[in-house]
């Protein structure tokens, strides 16, 4: 089930993925691949299937057809080792989802200690390191409710990083934040990209997608409608993408 991917193999690949919620066909034969170190932005209208596609990568949704390979795991198969998959994949959500009963440090050390068996002292060092990465060292002992939305989201990113994932998924991570807090979260993601992290992000921040993404996948009605380098946002070839970027604000 799990082969060691050769360096040339993509970290994430979807081939002809289909997914329905009841009678509603959400993914209608979606294919794309993400190479090591690549940043891929999934864009599209609400309901176009981009979030579902992202969630399928971490198997929060089971697909009805097609093939998904993530870090060598055959995610579409029922016998996929979910815990192994999720050690390789980090996911950050729109609503942060920090654990409210734990301090930021405990939020971060929980999974490394429980899943990987990292010693407590080592895990605490790790927590300091990842919090420094997101600029929140001083919040080590704070509880989530004491943090602003932007800080909570940065802490959630740090929590994911502590598991040292091979690929990070971002599901509209700035949609709940005002522009100022959005900027501080985006700076963290930019730094991750600069450090070479492989990332797939669903985003409505077109300016950000243009600045950071190596490749854009524009989804429309459950299909990959247009894909290409970030430049397709400024010179789209399909009328749908033209209309989509025309309605958004293309700040850089």
């Amino acid at each position, binding site marked *: 089930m799990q082969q060691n991917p050769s360096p040339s193999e993509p970290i994430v690949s979807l081939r002809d993925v289909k997914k329905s919620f009841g009678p509603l066909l959400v993914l209608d034969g979606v294919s794309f691949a993400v190479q090591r170190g690549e940043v891929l932005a999934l864009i599209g209208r609400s309901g176009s299937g981009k979030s579902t596609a992202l969630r399928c990568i*971490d198997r*929060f949704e089971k697909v009805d057809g097609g093939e998904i390979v993530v870090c060598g795991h055959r995610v579409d198969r029922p016998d996929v080792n*979910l*815990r*192994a998959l*999720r*050690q390789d*994949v*980090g*996911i950050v*959500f729109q*609503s*942060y*989802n*920090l*654990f*409210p*009963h734990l301090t930021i440090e405990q939020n971060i050390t*929980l*999974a490394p200690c*429980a*899943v990987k068996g990292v010693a407590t002292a080592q895990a605490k060092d790790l927590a300091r390191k990842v919090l420094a990465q997101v600029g929140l060292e001083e919040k080590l002992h704070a*509880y989530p*409710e004491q943090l602003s*939305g932007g800080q*909570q989201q940065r802490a*959630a990113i740090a*929590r*994911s990083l502590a*598991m040292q994932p091979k690929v990070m998924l971002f599901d509209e991570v700035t949609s*709940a934040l005002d522009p100022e807090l959005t900027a501080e979260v985006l700076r963290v993601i930019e730094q991750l990209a600069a450090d070479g992290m492989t990332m797939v992000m669903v985003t409505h921040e077109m300016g950000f997608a243009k600045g950071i993404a190596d490749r854009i996948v524009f989804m429309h009605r459950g299909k990959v409608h247009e894909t290409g380098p970030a430049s397709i946002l400024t010179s789209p070839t399909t009328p749908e993408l033209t209309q989509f970027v025309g309605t958004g604000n293309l700040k850089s």
Partner: protein
Amino acid sequence: MGGHLNINHLMFLGQGALWTVGLSVIALIGGGIVGFVIALARISPLKSVRIASAVYVQLIQGTPLLVILFLGYFGLAAIGLKVSPLAAAGASLTLYVAAYLGEIWRGCIQSVPKPQWEAAEGLALSRTQRMTKVILPQAIRIATPPTVGFMVQIIKNTSLASVVGFVELMRSGQIVNNSLFEPFAIYAIIAVTYFAMCYPLSLFSQKLEQRMGRGRSTLAPA
């Protein structure tokens, strides 16, 4: 018949009150343990386990406690199992309390926002780890006020154990009344004693709920 209410009668009632407390504690501990298993079974990934536990809850909730007590005491005797009133009352109340606490706690576990489960899943925690380290600590906070509130029901319902001859507060009152025949005075004493046991718990439950209300933001998903 004859005589007046004296210190010996009051001592006897006091002893009954202690057994009421004792039976309540047995019901709470036994029902708590079984109820916890029921709560987990109700949200099990296995459909058969979910159905079996749901059937149990429905059966118990649809049966008067009085009937459960009779079944426990006379039913077991009929099939040759002689059980003491304490054992019958303790077992019956345990089954009864488990059904209700199981449902209360299932609701509390499920009221922890779904994204919390997903976040824990995304971090590769096993189901047991998700439960013990992420969900239950949050569910316990939610569950405390209704659980304390339900304890009041348990205390009052132990009075039904008098029908199987278990001498708790109610039964001791009946016994004293049989010799004195002063029902109003005696049952007034009984009522006040129950109230004195239940009211502090009710107050405590209300206080907990108020505190929960203030701290609600800590339970929201974000």
